[in-house]
């Protein structure tokens, strides 16, 4: 039996406040943790079947028509089985939820670095050597690679306008008109993209590192021309995704094609350098932000004009303005987003697409305007919280920004902060503090899950992936709580398209979407138990394997009887988001030290206070926020994928030269959650937490740099040379 739910309005009950079993919303370790730290959790590249061959992708050194100059010579090399140069190979990775093949055809290279061939050999060493020997000729085709020089067509521009923005800018007591830039970013997941493809009787089994299997199955099937029903995709463990594994990429398609041609399994693992250029990057952005405020520090005009890039034909444009539509009240607004066509590697979703860079730069602008208004930055934001969605006539489903700002500033000790810049010095180091708000739209996606209850315990099955976020933990807790079992009697099985399709991991939707599907499946089982007990589901209490109804109490095993009980949950988003604006909120606070000699910045403290509905597991939620804050440090200070100015290729494509923050760059991080229930978020009142802490944390650091030493950095990252340019 399937328990269906469409979220069209607020839920009427909060059964999880009752906590019979008492495992939900509690700290819980990851059931997969011991497997991972002891190396027993097998990742995609580790399911090496007997007789597997090894493939290595080869890139195009230029843009244009592709020719393999010495294919026969390479095919004759020791151990080489084939050089695949097949027009079904993909140029770009599929965008998230594409559900169909991305652009195919490797006779043409659209960008420098595009994979154009796969060399397959008996051993990985033979394959990589032969791949290095394959001479690819591609070039001759010119195209814009520099931001501001690409083509922008009318359909690539979207504008929304409210009131009279220009008049507000003319008449504002204080105004700001500033342009900010962010560079390309990469997901840089620790596990490289990898695939093992095996065909049997016309059916493909693909072990791969992917985030959203139900879409990925259709994408790979479309690429290789088979019915999706004949494709099984497995990804029970994924070593980080951050958006780069939302859609299938070159290695999976090439592995599937080569395995079919050769009649044996083929493994393809992207090299680290390929990971940096083959999978979608976050586009660089240029953001012109214009703000006007009245004498009381209330915004009268809000303008955000963003430019991002992608390859021709790619629909995705970094949704920079996503939160600007609702973050602050202002009667006169102009939001404009443009996508230009640049021949750099394709761009797509990277951790918190949109808000990661949009909120961050907007929060720098808010800091600048607060200063010119002479108002404390926390107070400035409090004054501009909208009552309702400022562009659509709908209320917020819940809105706890004020609570986050107030509690966060109290926890950080914000009140002690001197208002002026350059007030505190320790030796050569300027010390300062800064803050920024956090916004991230909340989404639910369709999800299904199956739960089986037997005397042995509970089994949960869905094709949902755990890309390191803690999905195994949370789904275990939900099932344990709903069905009254200790967590060690609940087994969660993920990452297999033979299971019911979950939401997939992406956009912070996993816990609330697939979690709700599990919740619904358990509800269906609870109903069956209640029926057997002769009571209503709402009156049933399940705890420690016992079912209690009024004064009747039975072992659940007794109630089940002969066969296991099975429930199927199916969540659909419904019309809720047409009726309300739904978001998560937060406040970031940072303390930095800036060297007056070198312009080096060291983050001394970084704190976040967040509201994201019911927190299902504080430990995994906090861990997500630690990751996001670290992204914030990287965005503010170190991360930039550099593109060669002549041909757009990614220059610094390894971990030595693409500077992620290392342990020494990350101070103690302080994360706090504000208690919140959002009844529009489903029966658990839980919202996504994964990406919220990236959305603005970098701005708190940039604002703290300004407070410390008076230097305002508008082009990220704030590397020593950029800070020094302001100090000198």
């Amino acid at each position: 039996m399937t328990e269906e739910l469409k979220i069209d309005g607020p839920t009427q009950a909060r059964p999880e406040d009752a906590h019979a079993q008492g495992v939900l919303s509690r700290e819980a370790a990851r059931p997969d943790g011991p497997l991972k730290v002891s190396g027993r959790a097998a990742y995609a590249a580790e399911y090496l079947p007997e007789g597997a061959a090894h493939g290595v992708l080869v890139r195009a050194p230029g843009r244009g028509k592709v020719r393999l100059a010495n294919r026969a010579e390479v095919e004759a090399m020791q151990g080489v089985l084939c050089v695949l140069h097949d027009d079904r190979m993909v140029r770009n990775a599929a965008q998230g939820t594409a559900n169909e093949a991305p652009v195919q055809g490797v006779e043409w290279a659209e960008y420098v670095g595009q994979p154009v061939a796969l060399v397959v050999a008996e051993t990985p060493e033979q394959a990589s050597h032969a791949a290095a020997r394959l001479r690819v000729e591609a070039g001759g085709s010119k195209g814009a690679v520099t931001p501001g020089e690409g083509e922008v067509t009318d359909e690539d521009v979207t504008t929304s306008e409210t009131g009279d923005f220009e008049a507000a800018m003319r008449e504002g007591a204080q105004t700001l008109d500033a342009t900010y830039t962010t560079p390309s970013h990469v997901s840089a997941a620790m596990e490289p993209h990898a695939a093992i493809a095996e065909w049997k009787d016309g059916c493909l089994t693909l072990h791969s590192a992917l985030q959203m299997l139900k879409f990925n199955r259709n994408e790979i099937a479309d690429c290789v021309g088979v019915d999706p029903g004949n494709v099984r995709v497995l990804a029970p463990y994924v070593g980080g995704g951050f958006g780069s594994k939302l859609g299938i990429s070159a290695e999976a398609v090439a592995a599937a094609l080569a395995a079919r041609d050769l009649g044996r399994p083929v493994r393809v693992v992207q090299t680290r350098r390929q990971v940096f250029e083959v999978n979608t990057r976050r586009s660089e952005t240029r953001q012109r932000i214009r703000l006007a405020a009245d004498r009381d520090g209330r915004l009268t005009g809000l303008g955000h004009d963003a430019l991002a890039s992608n390859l021709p034909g790619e629909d995705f444009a970094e949704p920079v303005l996503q939160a600007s539509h609702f973050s602050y009240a202002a009667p006169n607004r102009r939001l404009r987003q443009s996508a230009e066509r640049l021949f750099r590697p394709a761009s797509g979703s990277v951790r918190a697409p949109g808000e990661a860079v949009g909120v961050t730069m907007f929060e720098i602008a808010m800091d600048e305007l607060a200063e010119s208004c002479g108002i404390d930055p926390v107070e400035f934001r409090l004054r501009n919280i909208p009552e309702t969605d400022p562009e659509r006539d709908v209320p917020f489903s819940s809105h706890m920004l004020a609570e986050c700002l107030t509690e966060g500033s109290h926890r950080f000790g914000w009140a002690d902060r001197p208002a002026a810049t350059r007030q505190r010095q320790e030796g050569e180091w300027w010390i300062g503090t800064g803050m920024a708000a956090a916004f991230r739209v909340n989404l639910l996606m369709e999800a299904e899950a199956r739960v089986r209850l037997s005397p042995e315990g509970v089994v949960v099955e869905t094709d949902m992936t755990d890309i390191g976020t803690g999905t195994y933990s949370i789904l275990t807790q939900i099932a344990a709580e709903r069905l009254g079992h200790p967590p060690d009697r609940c087994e969660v099985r993920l990452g297999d398209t033979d299971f019911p399709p979950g939401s997939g991991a992406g956009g912070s939707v996993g816990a609330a979407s697939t979690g709700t599907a599990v919740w619904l499946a358990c509800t269906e089982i609870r109903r069956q138990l209640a029926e057997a007990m002769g009571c209503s589901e709402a009156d049933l209490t399940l705890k420690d394997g016992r079912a209690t109804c009024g004064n009747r109490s039975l072992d659940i095993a007794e109630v089940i009887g002969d066969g296991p009980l099975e429930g199927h949950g199916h969540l659909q988003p419904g019309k809720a988001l047409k009726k309300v604006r739904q978001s998560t909120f937060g406040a970031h606070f940072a303390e930095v030290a800036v060297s007056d000699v070198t312009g080096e910045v060291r983050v001394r403290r970084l704190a976040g206070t967040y509201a994201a509905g019911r927190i299902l597991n504080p430990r995994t939620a906090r861990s997500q926020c630690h990751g996001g804050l670290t992204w914030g440090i990287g965005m503010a200070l170190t991360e930039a994928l550099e593109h060669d100015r002549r041909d757009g290729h990614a220059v610094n494509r390894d971990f030595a030269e693409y500077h992620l923050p290392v342990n020494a760059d990350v101070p103690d991080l302080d994360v706090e959650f504000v208690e919140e229930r959002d009844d529009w978020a489903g029966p658990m009142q839980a919202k996504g937490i994964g990406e919220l802490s990236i959305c603005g944390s970098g701005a708190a650091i940039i604002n703290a740099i300004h407070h410390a030493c008076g230097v305002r950095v508008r082009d990220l990252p704030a590397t020593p040379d950029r800070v020094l340019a302001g100090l000198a």
Partner: protein
Amino acid sequence: MRPFDLTRPEELSAACRDTNGENAAFIAGGTNLIDLMKLEVETPGHLTDISRLGLDGIETDAQGLRIGATVTNSDLAADTRVREGWPVLSRALLAGASGQLRNKATTGGNLLQRTRCPYFYDTDTACNKRAPGSGCAALKGEQRNHAILGTSDHCIALHPSDMAVAMRALDASVELCDAEGESRRVGLEKFYRLPGKTPERETHLRPGELITAVHLPKAGGDRQVYRKVRDRASYAFALVSVAAVLRMKGGRIAHAALAFGGLGTQPWRDPEVDALLEGETPSQALFDKAGEVLMRDAVVHEGTAFKVPLGKRVLTAVLKEVTA
């Protein structure tokens, strides 16, 4: 990676003989060579493992310290004699790479590590150092970790070592041995070549010649500082680094040895900077002058222009600290 032969000799002469060909290379820690071989930037057909030659000792002698070529960076940094007598070396070592790399990387290998120029690592681009005569993609490309001192129209690749910078300030010399068993000592100032028209030739090592040890004379100054500026707090190459070995006498600078990382095509030392400082009373004007002298021949590009002001500021800060 191109297939290669590996020998693991236990005698020095055998090691030099094994490696006495165009296409042979010594390998110790392999922290740089293996990376380059994977990318086929380096394609030796023969590797000689020198880890069994007993070159891993540190000894004191009448002149100072003799450091075996395969002493790891971690062991060298932790050696109490180094920490007491040559602390600038210990600090420079610990400012470099990561703990894992320092555990493998060796003294001789560190001196010979290749540049981090991204175009050198990318076999699809032009690089005179990797493929002589092919051109230099960095000159009009993305520059950041590139040199501004000692460059040529053919190459602006930076020498990335921290350790070697401290060794230059300490007047280190290298002990070399060839296939005939001939041994010679070369001061670091004469060990490296400027790129000129042949950036592929980085040192004066002869074919088959192996670094067997580094000699450090007793330090010329009791005040020793290593300061490194970088994009992140650990595991990043220097934007600018300064090693200072200095002695004060009666309020004047009696001995000054300044060496620089992040600026030069080789670990950089400029005798004119040292000469300018020696005998003088420390002052801001003197430090400014030192910066001017250091940068007098700097050749900057768009991406490296910041190194001139940054280098001067760090030099001044180090001189202030070390003369205080």
